[in-house]
């Protein structure tokens, strides 16, 4: 069974994001970039499926600029077998990424697409769901546990009221939530070995997919600065203030 893991190169979660002066987006010049944390969890889960014998091959794929090769090398160092970069300098919307992934899937024929539930840059939380719809495959989003057996995936999902368990037929799209696993650190020998694993680079244009933007970003602004709070004299004041604010 082949598992395809889409991974995204995003601004590092430790970096304090700054908005560009012209309000067109986040300033990425000289900013540390790394693999989206939810994608890391997806890679880890795919590698564990392979280690358990449930998967035979783990293929990482990224859609992005040349530098996304480094993100793919991280996936390879964690244990993915090979990688594909669909190269583009365009900043693609979730639907476009889903279409690109669909084209990759047509070629690769994976039984499971295991991906992060969202990327921490745009926080769209849409690509996995859109991909399942385009493929007309079952989807199980926000997985906190994944068991593959008998041509099905048993996926535990974190929902508002607690945990929900789904049985989905394969092939399927599964998206990873935070508590699915704790990703391993890539070891130094595996980082060196990752260099020798195959990484194919294809131009986005070669896939013949319509990736034209459908959304227009009007402006990007910093969240409002926290303003000073108020002091209350008594507990009763506190309660009545909270009631006024609609919290209680």
């Amino acid at each position, binding site marked *: 069974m082949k598992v395809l893991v889409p991974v995204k190169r995003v601004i590092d979660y430790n970096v304090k994001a700054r908005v560009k002066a012209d309000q067109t987006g986040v300033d990425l010049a000289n900013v540390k970039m*790394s693999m989206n944390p939810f994608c890391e969890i997806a890679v880890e889960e795919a590698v564990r499926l392979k280690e358990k014998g449930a998967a035979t091959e783990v293929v990482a794929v990224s859609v992005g600029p040349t530098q996304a090769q*480094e993100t793919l*090398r*991280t996936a390879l*160092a964690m244990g993915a077998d090979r990688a594909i970069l669909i190269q583009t300098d365009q900043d693609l919307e979730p639907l476009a990424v889903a279409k690109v992934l669909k084209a990759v899937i047509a070629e690769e024929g994976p039984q499971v697409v295991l991906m992060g539930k969202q990327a921490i840059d745009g926080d769209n939380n849409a690509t996995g769901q859109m991909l399942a719809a385009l493929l007309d495959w079952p989807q199980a989003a926000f997985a906190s546990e994944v068991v593959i057996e008998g041509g099905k995936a048993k996926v535990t999902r974190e929902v508002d009221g607690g945990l929900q368990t789904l049985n989905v037929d394969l092939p399927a799209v599964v998206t990873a939530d935070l508590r699915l696993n704790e990703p391993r*650190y*890539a*070891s*130094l*020998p595996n*980082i*060196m070995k*990752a*260099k020798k694993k195959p990484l194919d680079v294809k131009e986005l244009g070669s896939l013949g997919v319509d990736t034209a933007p459908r959304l227009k970003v009007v402006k990007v602004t910093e969240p409002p600065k926290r303003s000073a709070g108020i002091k209350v004299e008594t507990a009763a004041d506190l309660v009545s203030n909270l009631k006024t604010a609609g919290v209680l």
Partner: protein
Amino acid sequence: MDFNLTEDQRAIEDAARAFAQAELAPNSARWDEDKHFPVDVVRKAAELGFAGLYVREDVGGSALSRLDASIVFEQLSYGDVSVAAFISIHNMASWMIDRFGSEELRRRYLPRLTSMELIASYCLTEPGSGSDAVAMKTTARRDGDQYVLNGTKAFISGAGTSDLYVVMARTGGEGAKGVSAFVVEKDMPGISFGAQERKMGWNAQPTAQVNFDDCRVPEANRIGNEGEGFKFAMAGLDGGRINIASCSLGGAGLALDTAKAYLETRKQFGQALKEFQGLQWRLADMATELDAARLMVRRAAHALDTKNPKATQYCAMAKRFATDAGFEVANQALQLHGGYGYLRDYPLERIVRDLRVHQILEGTNEIMRVITARELFRA
């Protein structure tokens, strides 16, 4: 000449940084306070290949260069100087076995050293011979297919905890050519350990004397030939100096970043400290010294990797400069914090205490000048 790290080196740096930030940094204050040596965490570091950085791959090493190792130690020590320095000593001792030991010795110990199932210490200094290491008195008398060791080694990092001790002892007459190197196991009869030293810093690792009292060591545990031990010990120290200097870079890097953040947030006289030009200049000088130190360390590491004939001199110069600069940067960072810098709630006083010893060990900075001058006059 390209001053940028390669893609591999950036990946290695990221891996070391991620480990240090998650596993070391959050605990370093507590380990210092409790004088706790986190064996479990150093073994976790070993799983990632940090215990045999420049040991060959056939025995589980990572087979990296000295420059790569320097990058790793800088990142690890940004998380915890004391633990990073200990891992560097384990690397140095393991490398001596890998580089100079017999095939049998390599196979017997290195697979367990690279996983840190076994932890190694380096034993050169004695109570009466520090800078004048060649005056050592510990003897190894041959008796059939064994050696009988007698003497005391002092200031041994890991003493009492480590499983293996790479020991320099005298098998022949006086001088460097009378010294041989041995691998001594912790439970060989006749080895014992002194009380734990009470230290200014480096508290997250044990330090004590190691005593040999008719300690019998099989001939097979000798590293290389009789009389080569001092040469091996010095070769180990060339790299050891790069490692310790790299650990100064990491500790000083944390001090600098902490001071920068403090200048940005602390206000006095109605403005942030960073608005005061006197403090700006201080921070700029700290950053400059640290960068110069880093360049020297990396050049020296590269010289070792490329077997540059001046490597010993570069290592000595880089060790002297980087450990002095590292301590000074940390001390200045403490000063910039005022009274808060003196409190254990901030990392500065710990970094100062930890980095102070780097000016003393792996050859004092005075000995570094002796080596540098000797190499200058040799040319």
